Structure formats: structure tokens, C-alpha cells
């Protein structure tokens, strides 16, 4: 279990990056850490991994202060920092992975087993004989992720792990994380801007804004919020049959957006949907009707935007 207790971080130039952050992450949770650039996500991750010392407060992993006892705890952790390679650049991927195998003291059987598992998701063996410095950015990310999973850590911290990955690799990585979490009951903390994937991967979301946690709850509650926000009914039309009726419709349902020959409404009930549809059919020549859930990205953007304003 990870406990973040009253963590604040003020940098030397008196810039406060984290303000009294508190939250817990239970064993086996996959947590998305979200926020705008510069909101303090990476600083929080560095505090959680014992890389930097919080100005106030502490981070406890399995009830042990991670900054004080980092070396003791590190074998239980796997950390990927965004755009910071931990590989030796002039060696091949295989040699690098063998180096990590040695320093984590992994036996041959476990090493081959994990490489086979990871290879099934992100195709790591195809990079084996390439020199690390000759890899593309996305390939380097795959290598980093492989290297932090070889020792089957209980805690995985990933700072924007999907940057540079193509669609298939991204899908593969998320599937790998899901299965790894199930198999080893590992806690996984992911900093990401890929909100479209969060619902399918994470069960807990933390939103950080201006150094404060502004959302700390399960993704299910985020989903509920999503449903409370209603659905979007989009209608494409060829021409308007009755301008007066159209005007009335627009006045009655003010939550609407009109674009070029299309109109969308935010609706909250079945009745409302039926009423709008019958009115639309009366006043316009309808070409297409679409009903969609509001995108998670939009909800998160709203949460972040509200906080930005209040800041």
C-alpha cells in the first residue's frame, strides 16, 4: 500500500509545486495520475519513488518511508521516467537487459519467462540485437518498460509510458499492464495524457492541478459523473422546414451547439430525447441522428478547467 501523507514540495526558487497532498493507493490498484503540463505530476512521482525529498510530509510504501529507505524498497519497484533512458546507450538491447537481470539478481528461468510474456504484448525480442542508441523513441520506451518488469515488482510507476508508441504498441502495453496487475496484484501508477484509455485500464483516477489533488476517486465514480453529465444527441439536416419551430426548439433546449447544418443537444432523460427528436423532425429535413456518451476527455477537461479558473 502507498500512503502519501501531507506531502508538499517547494523548490529552491520558492516555487511551490505540491501543496499538502494526501491520498492512499491500495494494493492491486491501477491509478491514472492526470493533470496539465506543469501541474506537479512528475514531481509527485519523484517524491513517491524516493528520488526527491518532499519539503514536508512523507510517502510510505508498505509503511516504510520511501526517501529514507529507498535502497531497501527499490527491489519492489519498477520506475520509468519520461524521456530519461536508464539503458547504456552503446550496448545492444540484449546486453542491457542482461545487465538488469544481473543487478536485480533474476534467475534464468524467470528472465526468459518474463521476456516471453512481455514479448507477447510489445514485441521486444525483435529489438534484441539492436544497439540502444540506434533505436527509435518508441522502441526505447518498450525497452525501458521491459527492464522495469523483469523482476516482477509489486509497484510500477510509469511517467507517460505511451509517448512515441504506435497504436498497436499502445494497445499491447495497456493489455500487458492489465494482465500484469491481475496476475501479480501489483499497484500501477501511470502518469498520462491518454485519457481515452483510462477507462479501460485504470480503476482509480487522481487529478492534480496547481499542486493540489482535485479529484481522487475511482474511475467508476468518474463514469457515474459521466452519466450525470448526460448524452449528446447530434442531428444532421439538409434544410430547415419551419424557422419558427426551429427558433422555439432552440429556446426550449438551451444546451445546444449549432454547426454547419448540424445541431447537437445535451440530454438527460429518455423523454427529453424523444421530445427533441419529434420537434426536430417537424422543423427540419433530418439526414442523420447520433446519440453518444459524453467523452471522458471532456469531463476531465472540465474538472481541470474549473480548477484553473479558481486558481
Amino acid at each position, binding site marked *: 500500500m502507498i500512503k502519501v501523507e501531507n506531502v508538499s514540495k517547494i523548490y529552491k526558487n520558492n516555487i511551490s509545486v505540491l501543496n499538502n497532498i494526501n491520498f492512499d493507493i491500495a494494493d492491486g490498484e491501477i491509478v491514472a495520475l492526470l493533470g496539465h503540463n506543469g501541474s506537479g505530476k*512528475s514531481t509527485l512521482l519523484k517524491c513517491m*519513488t524516493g*528520488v526527491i525529498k518532499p519539503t514536508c510530509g512523507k510517502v510510505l510504501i508498505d509503511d516504510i518511508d520511501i526517501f529514507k529507505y*529507498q535502497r531497501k524498497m527499490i527491489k519492489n*519497484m519498477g520506475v520509468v521516467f519520461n524521456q*530519461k*533512458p536508464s539503458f547504456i546507450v552503446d550496448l545492444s538491447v540484449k*546486453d542491457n537487459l542482461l545487465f538488469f537481470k544481473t543487478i536485480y*539478481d533474476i534467475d534464468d528461468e524467470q528472465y526468459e519467462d518474463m521476456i516471453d510474456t512481455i514479448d507477447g504484448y510489445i514485441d521486444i525480442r525483435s529489438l534484441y540485437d539492436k544497439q540502444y542508441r540506434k533505436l527509435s523513441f518508441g522502441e526505447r520506451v518498450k525497452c525501458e518498460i521491459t527492464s522495469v518488469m523483469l523482476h516482477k515488482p509489486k509497484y510500477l510507476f510509469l511517467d507517460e509510458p505511451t509517448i512515441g508508441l504506435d497504436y498497436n504498441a499502445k494497445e499491447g502495453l495497456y493489455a500487458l499492464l492489465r494482465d500484469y496487475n491481475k496476475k501479480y496484484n501489483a499497484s500501477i501508477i501511470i502518469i498520462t495524457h491518454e485519457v481515452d484509455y483510462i477507462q479501460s485500464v485504470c480503476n482509480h483516477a487522481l487529478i492534480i492541478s496547481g499542486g493540489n489533488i482535485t479529484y481522487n476517486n475511482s474511475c467508476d465514480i468518474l463514469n457515474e459523473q459521466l452519466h450525470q453529465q448526460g448524452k449528446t444527441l447530434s442531428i444532421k439536416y439538409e434544410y430547415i422546414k419551419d424557422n419558427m419551430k426551429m427558433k422555439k426548439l432552440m429556446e426550449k433546449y438551451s444546451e445546444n451547439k449549432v454547426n454547419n447544418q448540424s445541431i447537437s443537444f445535451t440530454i438527460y432523460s429518455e423523454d427529453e430525447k424523444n421530445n427533441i427528436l419529434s420537434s426536430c423532425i417537424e422543423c427540419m429535413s433530418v439526414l442523420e441522428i447520433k446519440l453518444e456518451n459524453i467523452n471522458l476527455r471532456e469531463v476531465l477537461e472540465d474538472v481541470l478547467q474549473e480548477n484553473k479558473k479558481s486558481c
Partner: protein
Amino acid sequence: MYFRKIKNLAKIIVRFRLSRYKSFKVDTILNFTSNLLFLIGTILFWYIIDDAGFIVDGWSYNELLVFIALSEMFYGFEQNIFSVASVFWRVIYTGKLDTQLVRPMEPRRRFMLLNIDYIGLFISFCKVAVILIYAQIRLNFVKLIFSICIIFLANYVLMLIRFIICYASFWGNRLDSLTQICDSFTKFNKYPLIIFPKFVRVIFQTILPFYFFSTYPAQFLLGKMTVENSFILFLGLILNILIWKYINNFMWKKGRANYESISG
């Protein structure tokens, strides 16, 4: 289990080094050539000094060759193992330390181990053997091994000093110039330090490790000091190790608490 890990690590690091040599052949050849030229230059320098009659008091030319051999041993250890500590500040300054702190191998140990030049070290041992044979002085083998150990430990102390200077990067400093200061310390290895006044020698024997770079090992090996003096000076080296090890640990802890990494 621990020894198995060390053995595996040693094996893999030697393999890395060999594959690096294969990848960077030109660099390897140039490195070997420049080292050889430097050695020839040093021997010629002392030959000319001897020929002109300016010899260090109490040291014959052949004894100076033994000193040069031990001095070469010092450079062998320094260049192939320890000098890289001078650039550890870059690891801190660029934030690369982050990725090393979250791996099981201690960052400084990893940095040193991955940069050991085994082939260079082997060549240094060969050079030392050739010069000692050329010096034509009968030497005690046990004393020779002890002298080499002293040189290794003196280098270790210098490495601790280098690291301590590098820790200034935890407070956000670039340290190119300080690195050069550290490298300049090795110049105290060019000639026997007996030419310095006594109080300077005492400092170099107790607080700074310069006397142990090659002067003390050469004096010990050539029987130029009593057993009692050798023992007292050896304690001086131990004192050096303790002082610098303590400062090193203290500064590392202070630095780590101040470390801010870099953004991103």
C-alpha cells in the same frame, strides 16, 4: 548468493567492455598509442635529468625508474578506474541520477563499475612490469604487492574527494572547472614528494593522500624508510580514508536531501 551476483556482474561488465572495444577500435588504438608516447616521454625526461646531473637527493636513476613504475601504476588505476568520478556531477546536473536511483545498484558504484577499462588496466600492469625489469633493482615481491595496494587505496581516497566536489551539483552547479582542479591533484605524482618542506609533507600524509600516490610506495619498496615510519605513514593513509569516507557520506546525504532533479 552475493558472490554469485558479483561474479555475474563482473562477467557481464568485462563482456560490455570488450564489445565496446570492438565497436570503437580507432579510439582504443589511439588511447594505447598516446599512453605509450607519454611513458617514453617520462623515461626520457628522467634520463636527461640524470645525464645533466640534476638528480633528486638520495635517489639514483634506477631508483627513480622504480618510482616511475609506481607512478605509472598510479596513473593506471587513476585513468582506468577512478578518474571517471570527476564527471559524476554530470549525472546529477542532467537529472540522469533519477533513473539510477530507482535501480538496485548504487548510482556511484554503477557509474564506476561500468566505466572500468580492463584492457587499459592490463596494459598498465604490463608497462609497470617492463619498467621494473628495466630498472634492474632486485625487489621484494610481497613489498611490491603491498605498494600496489597502497597506490590503489590512495586512488580510492582521491576518488572520494572527486565525488565530494561533484556533489556541489546537487545545489545546481555545473562543475567543469572543479573537475580540472581534481585532475590537477594527480600532478603530485610526477616526482618524489620528499622535495617538499616537512609541514607540507605531513599534510600530504594525513589530510590529503598525495604522499601515497607513489612516493610512499616507492620509499617502502626501495627500503628508504624504517618499519616504524612505514607503519606510522600507513596509519596516516587509514586516517585519510576515514576522514574522506565520512565527509563523502555526509555530503551525499546532504546533497540527496537537496536534489531537485530536473523537470519532466
